[in-house]
């Protein structure tokens, strides 16, 4: 038996307060290389705040964040991304006036010094994400589903080792949702480690190996999708009885 690989990301006792409000309270978790971790929880549970803390947008009041053996607590966002930990935004933030290709190229330029190489990288990533026909389009002109994909493509172009996806499936129709799930599965199969925030339980059940449930900023449950959906606290706080009946 070989020892399990060291965690790629570990949070220990992370707390983030805004004045009197504690948005994230004493959260600890570990992500191992190759994991696909889901984070669920009602609106306002602190999911996005947790992403903001991990990615360097907010400095936590307490706790430690270690990425790949390195303490990144309080490191600025660009430095965290540079180390290989990249996030997407729930409310998509395309570079609106630039083309899809330029958007993704800017991501690729984080690892490349030559614009020619970055363009080649960007074209490859655009292909993977199914954005090929839209490469010359202005990002602003894309419909939501494609802007969500662009958000993923741009992050992928930075060649992350850990990708944080914040509700990239919200607002998609069933076809688009299926395509996004396929994309995430494919990335995972190719060895990428991911943390995914999502409200759509059906998608989460199909994707995640493990799920963490946040409620009022606290981690109240963690386990496999099966364990999570049969956990009394998760049902009471988030899923509701209808979900249990529908699943049954």
């Amino acid at each position: 038996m070989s020892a399990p690989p060291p965690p790629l990301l570990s949070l220990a006792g992370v707390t983030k307060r805004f004045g009197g409000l504690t948005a994230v309270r004493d959260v600890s978790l570990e992500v191992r290389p190759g994991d696909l971790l889901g984070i669920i929880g009602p609106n306002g549970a602190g999911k996005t705040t947790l992403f903001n803390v991990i990615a360097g947008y907010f400095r936590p009041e307490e706790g430690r964040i270690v990425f790949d053996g390195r303490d990144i607590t309080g490191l600025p966002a660009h430095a965290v991304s540079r180390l290989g930990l990249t996030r997407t935004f729930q409310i998509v933030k395309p570079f609106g006036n630039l083309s899809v290709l330029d958007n993704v190229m800017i991501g690729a330029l984080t690892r490349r010094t030559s614009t020619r190489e970055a363009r080649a990288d960007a074209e490859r990533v655009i292909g993977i994400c199914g954005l090929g026909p839209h490469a010359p389009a202005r990002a602003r002109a894309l419909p939501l589903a494609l802007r969500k994909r662009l958000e993923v493509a741009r992050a992928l172009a930075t060649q992350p080792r850990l990708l944080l996806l914040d509700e990239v499936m919200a607002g998609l129709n069933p076809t688009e949702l299926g395509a996004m799930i396929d994309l995430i599965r494919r990335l995972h199969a190719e060895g990428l480690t991911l943390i995914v925030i999502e409200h759509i339980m059906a998608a989460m059940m199909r994707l995640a190996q493990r799920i963490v449930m946040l409620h009022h900023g606290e981690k109240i449950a963690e386990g496999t999708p099966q364990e999570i959906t049969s956990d009394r606290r998760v049902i009471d706080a988030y899923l509701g009885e209808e979900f249990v009946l529908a699943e049954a």
Partner: protein
Amino acid sequence: MTATLARHRGALLLFAVAALIPIGVRDAYFLDSLVLILLWGALSAAWNVAGGYAGQVSIGHAAFFGIGAYSAALLGTRWQQSPWLGMLIGVLLSLGAGGIIGYLSNRLRGPYFTLSTIAFSQVLLIVASRWRAFTAGSEGLPVPFRPGFATLGLGHVAWVYVALVVAVLYWSIAVWLERSRFGYRLAGVREDEDAAQALGIPARRLKVIAITASAALTSVCGTLWAQYVGFVDPFYVFSIDLSVRFALNAIIGGLGTALGPFLGSILITSLETYLRAALSGVKSGFTGIYLIVYGLVLILVVRFVPEGLSGLAARLWARRSRSAA
């Protein structure tokens, strides 16, 4: 190479025409207009590095213009030094000033950044106009004319070429910006700072670099302008009017484009020169009417060609090529 030439044929044609004009035309009034078109164009191109490419809209760039103008004028009148040395000192001071204002206003976005730049230029105006013992205060500072290239005491034709060299240089910097790694990442910062940081771009550092470079380029033109005009008035060189002019030429011509600031300058500078001569003056009683026309042009451009004159030119060109094909 040929593709590059083809893409920039408009700009190259424009600069070639400017280079040929002094060969045939010796009219001082006309050549003076040409020098000013090129200088104001170069100044807007300098402003565009921060305002257009980095999205840091400053209405305080007169500060750097004034630093350049005063550095050379003071060194020349008080210590009899060459204006080239004054230009260098002006650049160093503007690098410092640009770095400081860039660093201090780093967290400010949008209008708050703009307000901080206005405040900065107003502080310098107060210093320059009140510190009589050093700057000669509000009386202003005459710059003595000493003939020769080393002292920048030049005739109109030579000034056209000096201004043209600066214009082409600044235009080339903009072209480089559009194609370089730095320029792409700067565009990301301009479009969305948070998203840029998520992609590993040190947004704040890039913004400071952009405004510092923009300040230094502005300062060089400030020195040239003072040597050309021969007089430095604090209420002019540090004025908000001047800062607005840098911004407006670029906005009218096309924000964040290499050629835009020069197209804006051609329109605005020639319009202003013409209207001033034609409509103002004691006998007509229309003093200042050019400002009304100026405003009108701005409104029309923003309403009908929001992407600026360079965008309009590109659109017309595309239509022509399509109908030709």
